[in-house]
């Protein structure tokens, strides 16, 4: 087991495509780190550089305090689970798991002992003599994990291991991976584009955009104190609402009305003109189900609900609004960066399951004004961030830098669709 340190890692492909740009991330010994970002953000490339399948253009890759830039994959002693499992189809499950041990010339008795142990952990005992072709997706996934845990590797690397499974199995395997990692206490780097996996699995999460690190923090810090518009929009489901806002003193003017925000937050956002306010759907509530003492005119507004999706424990209400042109462009671009397509500007509000608001109603909505974030539309920066609780935010403007890199990438490969996402 070992810590992994990435120092100013750069990856530029032969054709000049800048896939990873000056990324520095420390993974502590035994930590579960998630690399997350939309497709083409360089997260898989970064993982493959850790394991040694991609050359490092610049920067230092340290594993256990040792520089490994020029070591072949087999000399790094890491184990990896591939997105499509990459099991050896001509070998039985037993031999698949035993493969790394056989290469290390371990004695038959030791191989047997370790394989049995791994197969017991992963409940593969009854499948040992079968070939991978006869296994289900979840079983293949477990064999791939068995091959990873069977030897004493310095760290585990996962490349979107659950993306080929159906939703139910994905949930189960997620818990399984988490449990296994906690039990073995081994350093783990896990790549995913799914923010739910990122939030639930990671001790810390590194958010990447276009090969530029945006923020490296715990899931809670990312959720409560996103560094910029990109992180704010990426983390959380349904995503954060972005509304045009004008700040006057500690009063924030939103399309639906005016709310009062705490002084110290307002102070950071003075004199900036038109801003973007970010409010999580769950920071809204149906005023009729909120404690009466919290409901004041300053914290509520009236709006006509377009669509309601009731899920039992909660409901999502959609309220369309018109965004001024100054912020519309920024919001459209953001939506594109997040792999989405915005059809209209609308507010998503998460309501309590007990709420009786129906489609077409004019509802009174309460908003938790203390949790509103304000973003600078020009740079995307979060003006109201609580820096002490926001993990590591790279210096400079990460979002603008990613934008620059994006243009450079588009020049090399227009509308780039990277092979390894």
């Amino acid at each position, binding site marked *: 087991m070992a810590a992994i340190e990435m120092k100013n890692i750069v990856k530029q492909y032969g054709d000049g495509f800048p896939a990873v740009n000056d990324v520095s991330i420390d993974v502590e010994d035994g930590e579960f780190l998630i690399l997350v970002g939309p497709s083409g953000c360089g997260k898989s490339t970064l993982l493959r550089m850790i394991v040694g399948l991609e050359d490092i253009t610049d920067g230092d890759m340290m594993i256990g305090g040792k520089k490994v830039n020029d070591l072949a994959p087999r000399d790094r002693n890491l184990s990896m689970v591939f997105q499509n499992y990459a099991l050896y189809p001509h070998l039985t499950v037993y031999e698949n798991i035993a493969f790394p041990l056989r290469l290390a010339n371990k004695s038959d008795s030791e191989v047997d002992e370790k394989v049995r142990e791994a197969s017991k952990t992963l409940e593969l005992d009854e499948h040992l003599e079968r070939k991978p072709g006869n296994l289900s997706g979840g079983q293949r996934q477990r064999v791939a994990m068995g*091959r990873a845990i069977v030897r004493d590797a310095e760290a585990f690397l996962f490349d979107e291991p659950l993306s080929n499974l159906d939703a139910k199995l994905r949930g189960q395997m997620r818990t399984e991976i988490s449990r296994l990692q906690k039990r073995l206490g081994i350093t783990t780097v896990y790549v995913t584009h799914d923010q739910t996996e990122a939030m639930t699995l990671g001790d810390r999460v590194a958010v990447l955009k276009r090969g530029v690190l945006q923020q490296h923090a715990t899931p809670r810090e990312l959720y409560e104190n996103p560094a910029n518009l990109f992180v704010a929009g990426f983390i959380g489901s349904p995503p954060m609402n972005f509304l045009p806002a004008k700040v006057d003193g500690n009063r924030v003017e939103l399309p639906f009305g005016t709310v009062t925000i705490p002084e110290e937050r307002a102070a950071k956002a003075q004199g900036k003109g038109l801003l973007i306010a970010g409010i999580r759907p769950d920071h809204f509530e149906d005023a009729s189900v909120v404690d009466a003492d919290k409901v004041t005119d300053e914290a509520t507004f009236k709006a006509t609900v377009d669509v309601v999706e009731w899920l039992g424990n909660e409901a999502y209400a959609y309220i369309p609004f018109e965004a001024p042109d100054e912020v519309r462009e920024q919001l459209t671009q953001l939506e594109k960066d997040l792999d989405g397509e915005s059809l209209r500007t609308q507010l998503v509000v998460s309501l309590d399951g007990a709420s009786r608001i129906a489609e077409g109603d004019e509802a009174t909505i309460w908003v938790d004004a203390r949790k509103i974030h304000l973003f600078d539309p020009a740079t995307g920066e979060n003006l109201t961030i609580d820096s002490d609780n926001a993990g590591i935010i790279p210096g400079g403007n990460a979002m603008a830098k990613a934008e620059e890199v994006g243009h450079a990438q588009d020049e090399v490969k227009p509308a780039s669709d990277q092979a390894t996402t």
Partner: protein
Amino acid sequence: MAGNTSGKTAVGTWIGFALIMLWCLFPVAWIISLSFKSEGETAAGSAQFLPKEPTFDNYKAIIDNPDFTRALINSFGISLIATLLSVIFATLAAYAIARLEFKGKRLVLSLALAIAMFPVVALVGPLFDMWTTFGLFNTWPGLVIPYMSFTLPLAIWTLSAFFREIPWEMEQAAQVDGATSWQAFRKVIVPLAAPGVFTAAILTFFFAWNEFVLAISLTSTTSSRTVPAQMSFFVGPDPFNPPYAQLATASVIVTLPVIVIVLLFQRKIVAGLTSGAVKG
């Protein structure tokens, strides 16, 4: 109604099948029957299909014929060596073509294809001259080398197609698991490409086994003459009346190994070996 239609289809299929089998196998059956006829019977110009008095004399005669057994040994030796070398070289070359980016890759591939299309006969003259100069005329290597050069292109094309089908991840996984590039190739890629390797081997072996033009032109004695060439020397005492029964017997004997090899390798060629490697 549906059962009726499918019944009719089945009958049609079987009739067609029988016709094709008859068309293909009748000459074979004729040769087998001929090999059991006595010399007198074939010389008399008999036209009946089954031999009147079946006899093993032809087989005894041909096995006792030292020229024929010697040719059989030559055929086996030359074909096996050519196949082995051709498959080894083709595997390495095809792997490089499938996996590596290097300058002149397209040139190598198109050149290989051009060689495969080149008529063998056109090379007989130059080869004869070269081989007599180099002292390769009438030797095993003298046949092995041209056989390899004619079968390599096809083997390379077949194998590189197989290698391209094998996902990169297989190899990368092996390397992460601690394999050197060579170990990854030998323990993962080659077993997965086995169907391709066997296909290439069979094609090469058959080419070398059946080849006639080079075999007759580049040999002068039984020390390296292969069976197809040797058979053309079975003229018998009367040039207008070749020993058909003996020729037929020799044909049957040289065909046997081919059939055996096909049956053996057929089991090895398991399609879909890679299924389950990655999510299909």
